[in-house]
Structures are given as structure tokens and as C-alpha cells.
């Protein structure tokens, strides 16, 4: 298999979008959302289903495709047998998918969360960007409020650019980049050996450095008419931004793809994106920047 086309491929434009098809009650809504998004970006849409190809399923899917109004000649439908997660990931690589759309429930029960559902496992392992839709609708609406995680990481610039690309297509006038203020061990250090003004100064300086870095990234973007706001929230990374997205009633929360392979320990000792995956505050886009 030649994956060379995938290497260093930018995270946008979304030339090829795939949607995972499962015969759940939300199938039609997920297809409607996928259609809207693929039309918005002028992308080719691939429908992926992992499982037996039976006449009943074919008939049911055809009926949904017709109802949604997807052009069968323009878009592709792939059926394949196998283990769902690995097969979907393989198909995404083979077809050089830029964005994979999945329906996902907001909060899974504890057992399912720790064991790992299909949608969440794909989100953790995918080598392309993944969009988890929490409340897909038969009458999809555009993303109006987008919040991006501005964590200090080389991937962040690509993630912000991808969010900007989406914002331009959605004709937004603004979006927010959130910086999380969490300084582990600082309480202990300050308690030991700092005067009150020193402690304030240390905290301020630490956040200032990150602010300057983020501001530089934002200043260097081709924003057209979109106003990019930087907001600092306090709390644990991943959790604080999820809470913020919930409070602001955001439509889309955008994260970098994980730096490391996330396993069960990352769910037990939850951190970063795992907080968002544990309890999706809104639709979640995980940008895989392939750097």
C-alpha cells in the first residue's frame, strides 16, 4: 500500500470526505449532515460501511440515499467486511480521506467509555481529521460558533488554519481560540518560596509567554474578514475548554489530533482531548495535520 500521498498532506482543503454508515436510527441525519458538509467544501463523499452486504441492507441504504438526495454517481459507496475500527481506518488511508464524519453520542456509559466505542477509538487512532457529530439532524444547520484549542504545540497552527478554512466556507465573522491556563506544581512551589507579588508576577509571566506565542500565530494568519479572538480559560487542559464550549453553546470544538497513542490509562487518568471525548460538549473536530 502506498501511503506516500498521505505524508505531509495538508489538513485542508477537504477534497475527500468519508462518512461511516451504521444502520442506526440516526443514519439519515448523519447522511444529511455529510451531504451538507461535502457540498460546502465541494468534496467527493465516500460512504463507508463495514459489515455484511445483504439485499435488505442495500435496499435500506438506497432508500436513505435517495431520501437525502445524494447523487450515487458522484459519490461512492464502499462495503467491506472486517473489524470496524481497523477497516474504516484502512479505507480512509486507501482513499486518501481528508475528513471522516462519524455520529457519536454525547456521553457513553462508563464501561463503554473505558472499553472504547467505535467512534471514539477511530477518533483516537485516525490518520485523517475526524468530525464527531453529537446531534446530527435531517435539517442540518451551519456551524455558527467555532472554538479552537490553542494549546502550545506545533500542530496548533495547522489546526487553527483548518478552523479558519471552515469558518470562511461557513461565512462566519468570528471564531475563538482558547488558551488554557493550567500550571501544575506551581501552587506548591509558590507556597514554599514566593512573596505574594512574586507569585502574581510568576503566574502572569508564564501565561504571557504563551499568549505572545499564540498571538503571533493568529497575527500571521490570512484571516480575510474573520475576527479571531483569543480567550484564556482556567482549569485542566481539555476539561476547561470543553466547559467553555458548553457554556458558550458552541457548534464546533476543534482540537489537535493526539500526540501519542491514547490507551485505557489515558481514560483512567483523563487528560486533554480525553475530557472532551468523555463528555462531548458539542460537535468535535479533531484535526490531523500530518506534520
Amino acid at each position, binding site marked *: 500500500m502506498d501511503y506516500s500521498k498521505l505524508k505531509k498532506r495538508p489538513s485542508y482543503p477537504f477534497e475527500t470526505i468519508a462518512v461511516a454508515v451504521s444502520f442506526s436510527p440516526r443514519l439519515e441525519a448523519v447522511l444529511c449532515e455529510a451531504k451538507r458538509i461535502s457540498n460546502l467544501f465541494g468534496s467527493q463523499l465516500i460512504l463507508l460501511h463495514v459489515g455484511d452486504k445483504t439485499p435488505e441492507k442495500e435496499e435500506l441504504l438506497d432508500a436513505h440515499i435517495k431520501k437525502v438526495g445524494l447523487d450515487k454517481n458522484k459519490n461512492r459507496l464502499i462495503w467491506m467486511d472486517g473489524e470496524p475500527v481497523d477497516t474504516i481506518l484502512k479505507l480512509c488511508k486507501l482513499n486518501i480521506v481528508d475528513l471522516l464524519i462519524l455520529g457519536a453520542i454525547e456521553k457513553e456509559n462508563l464501561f463503554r467509555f473505558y472499553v472504547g466505542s467505535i467512534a471514539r477509538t477511530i477518533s483516537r487512532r485516525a490518520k485523517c481529521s475526524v468530525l464527531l457529530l453529537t446531534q446530527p439532524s435531517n435539517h442540518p444547520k451551519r456551524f455558527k460558533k467555532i472554538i479552537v484549542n490553542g494549546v*502550545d504545540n506545533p500542530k496548533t497552527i495547522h489546526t487553527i488554519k483548518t478552523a479558519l478554512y471552515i469558518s470562511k466556507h461557513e461565512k462566519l465573522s468570528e471564531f475563538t481560540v482558547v488558551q488554557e491556563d493550567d*500550571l*501544575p*506544581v*506551581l*501552587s*506548591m*512551589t*509558590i*507556597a*514554599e*518560596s514566593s512573596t505574594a507579588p512574586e507569585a502574581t508576577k*510568576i503566574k502572569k*509571566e*508564564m501565561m504571557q*509567554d*504563551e499568549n505572545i506565542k499564540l498571538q503571533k500565530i493568529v497575527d500571521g494568519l490570512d484571516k480575510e474578514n474573520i475576527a479571531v479572538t483569543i480567550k484564556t480559560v*482556567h*482549569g*485542566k487542559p481539555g*476539561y476547561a475548554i470543553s466547559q467553555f464550549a458548553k457554556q458558550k453553546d458552541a457548534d464546533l470544538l476543534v482540537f489537535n489530533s493526539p*500526540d*501519542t497513542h491514547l490507551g485505557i*490509562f*489515558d481514560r*483512567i*487518568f*483523563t*487528560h*486533554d482531548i480525553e*475530557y472532551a471525548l468523555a463528555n462531548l460538549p458539542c460537535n468535535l473536530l479533531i484535526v490531523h495535520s500530518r506534520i
Partner: protein
Amino acid sequence: MQLAYSSFAHLTFMGRLSHHEFIILLISMAVMLILSRVLAEFGRKLKFPIVMGEILAGIILGPTVLGLLAPNVFTTYFPSIGNTSIALDGIAKISVVMMLFVTGMEVQLPMVLKQGKAAIYTSTMGMIIPFASGFFIAYYFPSLFGVSDENYRLLFALFLGTALSISALPVISRILIDMNMFKTKIGTIIIASAMFNDLIGWLIFSFILGMLNTSTGEAQSVWITIASICGFGLFMLTIGKIIIDKSLPWMQKKLSWPGGILSISLGICFLCGAFTESIGLHAILGAFIAGIAFGDSVHLNQKAREIIHQFVTNIFAPFFFVSIGLKVNFVSNFEWQLVLVIVVLAYIGKIVGASLGAYLGGFSKNESMAVGVGMNARGAMEIILGTLALNAGLINTRIFVALVVMALVTSLTSGPLIHYFVGKEADEKKSIETI
């Protein structure tokens, strides 16, 4: 009324502090707090760790200085027997439990996981090599440390290995803040690795103390001790954590501020300490694990965290560190050969181990050395570990003094050594760019 009064009189006879003893206790506590603060503030100006001032206060007030210059004053205000001594000992014991609780609060396992390969390599190599070197030397050359009892050779070797493998998170983070390196790649790896070292170190030490408590030392006891540690840890970090996480928002909202959070957090700390003590492990394990579960909660706000730290670090920690100097004569127990062996072992094991780990984790040679020397600071953690071992009869006073000296020397040299290697890395990068 008469009956009640006679009951109290009976209690007084049984061991309540007398009026005079109570005054002595208050004076000694005041002197300990004030002198340690004065010396710590003086040391802070010179960028010394606060613990240094506290230890020095103990040395001045203890048998080393005051006991030598004014023995009567020393025995009056810091008696080694009697109710005042018992009261001071109780305060020191409670202090160490609370200190382990706040140490646990800063152990953030997610941070270690987040840093991935580099943190795992650095922390594991930074533990394995110093542990193995300490264990090997202590087990095969016990005479170097004056250990003659064959029954304690294994436990002593385990202890020395542990003592050489832990790091001091507060000292390290202070150095990194002063050098403006706290949020750099090197700084983050040092902090994450030191957290992991602390966790494993305290678990091993709890195991050693648990083994000391068992009279037989048979294989079954070992497994029961290990099972107890794992079982308690697993319970607290899963179910315990969920309970704490669910109740914290309510506590912070409904209880008076900051009294509510202080009472409940320390209440949990003492309960867990009492539980582990009752199952044959040391109270520090319960407090430490409770601290991890408490500190990991997303609902514990920064201000509450700071208040708990301020309370424990500035009021109780000085009692503990000063009390060390009150019990030990640092001059008569100073044996330079022993100090040299422990200091050399500490430097070689930690720097080689942590640097190698960092190198395997993808850092350059100089960056790896900076990580290694950064993790070499032992600070207060080593002193707490040594004191608990001394109290448990695991080590003698000479080894304890050597450990304290090692803790202070490693803490003082970490900053300049990090500075040297970071500077060297910058110079090398510059020269490559020039070429």
C-alpha cells in the same frame, strides 16, 4: 459536677500536659516557627531551598548548637522525654502526613502520560539506575554503611535504592521557574518524570515500611503488603477519585470558604492515613494516594489548591523539618566517608539514569544532561524519607545525616548544572548555525 471534675483530674494524672509543660510547648513551637521563617527568608534571598533554613533552625535549636552551648536551655525547651516531647513528636508526625498529602496533590499522572515516551524513559531510567546502584552497593557492601544485621540487609538495600531514586518536585520546579524554563520542553519532562519518580518511590517506601511492620517477613506477608498497597491505590484512584470529583463542586459552592475545603481535604487525608496505618502500611501512603486522588480532580480550583499548600507548607512543614535537627546531632554523626559514598552514588545513579532516559526519549546530549542534573535535586522529599526510615529504625543517625547532606548538596547544585548544560546546548547550536 464533682464526678466530672474528678474524671478530668484522673486524666491529668494519666498524662495531660501540665500548665508549665503547655507553656513550654507553646514557646518551643513559637521559636521553631519564627527562627525557621527568619532563616528560610534569609536563604530565599540567596536562592536556597526553604527547607535548608528549616533544617538549619533545627540544628541551631537542637543538640548540635544549643545543646552544646546551653544544655540546660535546650533540655528545658526541647526535652527529649515527657509530655512536651510527645506533643511535639505528634505534631511532627501529623505534619509529615499532611506534607505527603500535598505532595500527592501535585502528582499528576495525566501529565506523565501526556509527555509520552520521553517522560516514561526519563522517569523509569531515572529510577532504575539509581535504585539498582544503591541496592547493589548496600546489599553487597553493607559494612560501608555500618549495617551488620543480616535480617535488615535486604530492607536496607531496598531503602537506599529508593532513597537514591526519588526527586524533589518543589525544589526542581523552583529552579525551573527561576531559570524561566518551567514551560520549556526540558522543564516539562523534568517535572513529569519527577512526579512519576515520586509516585513509584513512595510506593516502594511504603512497601519497605510495611515489611518492617511484619514480624515474620515471610513470603505471604510480602504479597499481602503488595496487595494492600495496590488494592488501596486502585480503589482511591478509581472509585475514591470519582467520589471526590462528584463532591468537590458541592463542597466549594456550599461550604464556607476556604474553611470548608481545608477541613474536608485534610479530613480525607487523615482518614486515608488512618486506614493505611490500620492495615499495617504507613499513614503516609494513605495521605499520598488521597492527595493524588484529590489533586487530580478537575473541580479543585487553583485558589483552593494554593490555600491547602500554604497552610501545610508554611505552618506544619517547618515543625517537621525543625524537629529533625532537635533530635539529631549533625556534628557528632557526620561521617565524611559515608557522606561521600552517598553523595557520589546519588550523583552518578541519578544523572546517568535520567540523562540516558532523556537521550533515549529523543533529547540531545546536552539537553539530556540538563534533564539528568535537574532530576538530581532531592530536597525535602529525601529528608522526609530519611526521617521516616530513622524513626522506623531502618537506618542509623549517621546514614540519616549523610542523606540530609546529600539532599541539600544535590538541591544546591542542580540549578547551576542545568544552567551549564542548557548554555552549552545553546552555544553548540549557535556554532552549527555559524558554520
